[in-house]
């Protein structure tokens, strides 16, 4: 009898626990299973412009961050845009309506370096099909840096040059971003981010040459000679390897530089990638 009571005492709480309602209202202050504070994070992103009116950009970004605190980090990122050209709309406007966007609006990014800060004020969790629970962080970031830019001189359908570009120099750049970081494990995260890249679209030189230089080069190359009296830093050979190509490109550069234009460009880029915490 005593043993039966003992057995009942052992099993009753457990059985009672099983019969209780499944859902209970509780207030839990849960300790995070791991922290990012004091750790480095290396990220690799693929990115694409999401407001491609006159320009199209797509490329890769790498980012190194150090998390000073759980929700505060320093960042250094490098971006490279192998796809950097005028949009099909821009080329259609040139080919079908003989109009072109202002030079400033068509300025293209080749690459960028940014240093900045990240703040992750929102922390949460998610699950997929009621399966594994993943930690989640929503962050904002801001940075400053520099961008290397170029201008498209000729459209893709050009019989002489094909799609061609001219160097437009370096520009200061700022960025503002908002993103989401899902922690797949303690070390591995998936990141989605929207960044507004802001930079000056003022263009006064192409391949280091101003408007007058471009006209001189076009005239000289048409005559199969070398231009003289160019301003310092003007690189005639950058317009093309043959006189026909150089003349066409220099002529286009002259057109683009004829009317000065300035614009603050907002290049909205969506980027998704993975990162490694160590």
């Amino acid at each position, binding site marked *: 009898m005593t*043993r039966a009571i*003992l057995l009942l005492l052992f*099993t009753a709480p457990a059985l009672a626990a099983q019969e209780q309602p499944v859902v209970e209202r509780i207030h839990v202050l849960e300790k995070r299973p791991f922290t990012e504070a004091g750790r480095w994070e290396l990220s690799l992103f693929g990115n694409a412009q999401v407001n491609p*009116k006159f320009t199209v950009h797509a490329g890769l970004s790498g980012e190194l961050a150090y998390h000073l605190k759980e929700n505060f980090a320093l960042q250094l990122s490098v971006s490279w845009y192998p796809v950097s050209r005028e949009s099909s709309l821009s080329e259609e406007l040139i080919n079908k309506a003989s109009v072109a966007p202002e030079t400033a609006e068509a300025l293209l990014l080749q690459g960028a370096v940014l240093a900045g800060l990240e703040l992750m004020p929102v922390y949460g969790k998610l699950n997929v099909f009621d399966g594994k629970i993943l930690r989640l962080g929503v962050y904002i970031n801001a940075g400053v840096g520099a961008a290397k830019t170029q201008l498209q001189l000729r459209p893709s359908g050009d019989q002489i040059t094909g799609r061609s570009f001219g160097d437009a120099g370096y520009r200061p750049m700022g960025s503002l971003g908002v993103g989401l970081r899902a922690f797949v494990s303690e070390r591995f995260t998936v990141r989605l981010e929207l960044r507004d890249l802001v930079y000056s679209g003022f263009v006064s030189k192409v391949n280091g040459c101003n408007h007058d230089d471009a006209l001189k080069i076009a005239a000289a190359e048409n005559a199969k000679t070398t231009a003289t009296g160019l301003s310092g830093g003007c690189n005639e050979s950058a317009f093309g390897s043959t006189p026909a190509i150089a003349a066409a490109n220099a002529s286009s550069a002259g057109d683009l530089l004829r009317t000065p234009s300035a614009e603050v460009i907002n290049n909205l880029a969506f980027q998704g990638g993975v990162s490694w915490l160590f």
Partner: protein
Amino acid sequence: MRFRSSLLLAIGSLLCGVAAHAEGVVYGPDGAPTVVQHKLHTMTSKWEIGLSVGTVLNTALVNSDGLLLDVSWHPNEWLDFGGQLLGNLTSLSQLSDNVRAELCHTTTSCRTATPHRDELTNNNQLRLGAFAMGRLAPIYGKFNLASELPVHFQAYLLGGVGGAAVRRESVNLCAQPGTDVCTSYQTVDQFKPAGEFGGGFRFYLGQSWSIRTEVRAWLFGSSYKIDNDPTVPASGTEHGYLALIATVDGGVSFLF
């Protein structure tokens, strides 16, 4: 007798263990039990009515803003299907007006000097639509705003098929024969089969109300003319292509 006591104790411990396992307690890295809460906001067997306002993202030649009304049924937590009605106010953009202003600079006979033109693409104005649609919501989550305000959310993919009324007003091809400055442009109104796909987030305000934001692409067949004589509107050849209009919208939905 001693054997029976040990056996009873072992069986008791085993039952305790089994019962404890049935509780499903999972221990975290710090040794504390992890509590898995059930969803605060369930969707199964509920109807949903949603109303959103949206605008286009990728049509530089066209302005478009509108409303999207949807009704759907949730058979389980991660799927719902129903119908949608779309209505947009559309017009050509400032860029289109600028292009038109550059087409003819003189008041008379300007079109005779203009070579044959190809029509600009992506001038589609999606005005009305009716769609059967479904949403797949694999992700449910929660985050805390300022560590105090918990926000429950759902992320989903969506897709649908239906029909749409599309106006195509040419930006650069004139509807008037002759050589004078053009004041009316070639316009076609058509009803076309159309599809949509996209994704979105739902942020729960309570058991009944939620806020939704979505990005989606509307797809339908369209065409443009090539080799159009500016003085003869009927000239030229139609070429087909798949048009894509991307929109972003935000609105509210009611679950009951």
